[in-house]
């Protein structure tokens, strides 16, 4: 758990993740882009479960809905679900070694992707097999780097 939470860092990280969600990734490789906002929600609920939770994740998800032009509420629900699951397991999660943490990231973001994909399909999206799970995998792979980087920034500036 972080001793100090730097709110400016929090705001900046959210803006950065929103920008990364729509840009700065080679066109044609969009399938493999990590779910940046999901990672941010995961990180902040994991590090500061007392301050950030379901409602706040829902609000961020709503912004992602606007950016992705999905029906309002779809990504919001997915993000709230991530936050809820992190809140239920964060004490155990802290004890886990890196590989196991990565696995949890994969599972939680995978659940989020499945829910979002399911809802999109209900409203007539196209089915592309299991490739919608790629973002969960790439997110899990960059989780150690991402979390160490964020911890360092927090420690320096928090």
């Amino acid at each position, binding site marked *: 758990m972080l001793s100090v939470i730097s709110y400016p860092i929090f705001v900046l990280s959210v803006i950065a993740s929103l*920008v990364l969600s729509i840009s700065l990734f080679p066109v044609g490789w969009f399938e493999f882009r990590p779910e940046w906002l999901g990672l941010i929600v995961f990180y902040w609920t994991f590090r500061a479960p007392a301050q950030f939770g379901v409602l706040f994740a829902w609000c961020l998800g709503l912004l992602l809905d606007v950016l992705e032009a999905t029906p309002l509420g779809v990504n919001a629900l997915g993000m709230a679900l991530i936050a809820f699951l992190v809140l239920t397991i964060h004490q155990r999660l802290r004890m886990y070694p890196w590989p196991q943490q990565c696995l949890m990231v994969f599972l939680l973001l995978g659940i989020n992707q499945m829910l979002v994909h399911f809802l999109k399909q209900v409203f007539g999206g196209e089915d592309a097999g299991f490739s919608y799970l790629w973002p969960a995998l790439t997110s899990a792979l960059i989780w150690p780097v991402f979390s160490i980087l964020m911890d360092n920034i927090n420690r320096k500036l928090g």
Partner: protein
Amino acid sequence: MPGLRLLLVIIVSAALIVADQQFDRLAPVRSTLATGLTPVYWLGNAPYQFSDWVAGLFTTREDVKQENEDLKARLLILERRALKYAALASENNELRRLMNSSELLDDRVIVSEVVSVSPDPYSHEIIINKGRSDGLQVGQAILDAHGLMGQVVQTSQVTSRVLLVSDSSHAVPVEVVRNGLRAILLGTGDSGTLDLVHVPDTADIREGDLLVSSGLGGRFPRGYPVAEVSLINKEPGEPFVSIRARPKAQLNQSRLVLVVFPPKGGPRPEPVASDSEQEGQG
């Protein structure tokens, strides 16, 4: 406690999704949020603009001179064509007037820049930097230098979202330039191919035929090139031929696009209104 909140959030989300999807009540909310998110779009586009600017710093004088000369040559060719076009357009309008048709060919366009592409790899959408403050409305057609690209599906104050013709939920009414054969062109979800559907196997259509928007349906203006027939596959026993077409517009390359404003007094981009108008005309 988190469980209670999750329950609350699930109920609110379900209500939002139903209101948005079934009753279409949330367009103002979405538009307001999108306007608030304009800095995000701007930041997302900033690196590309910066790299363009850096690339501009390092072009040599010779390159610029060469480009300038090429552009001048091209301008000359286009001007010659425009001269011919002006004569043709006036002749065309004259003929239309003689036939008592009220519809004159003049579309107003504004130039816009693509600031972002849709982050969802399964939907073909782009975001352009013109919005309601420039007078854009849902349903307007978007062109690039080569042909029809798509239509505006959402507007915020300063940006708009454009659905491309290649999206699997998109359809354009088209006609073959050579003989006026009408058909519907569907997107396939692949930016290089479109499907021409419900063409009977006796229809006169060949590979290489140019398909232009027919203006039926009232959403797209008439006469803009959309695609070129690339493959015709006649299956014996099938009532329709399967026809593939290649979009004329460079859907995933163009950075500058044109937004077409419908001529005054012409069909509005509202689908319901235009349908009734067409029945009235026909």
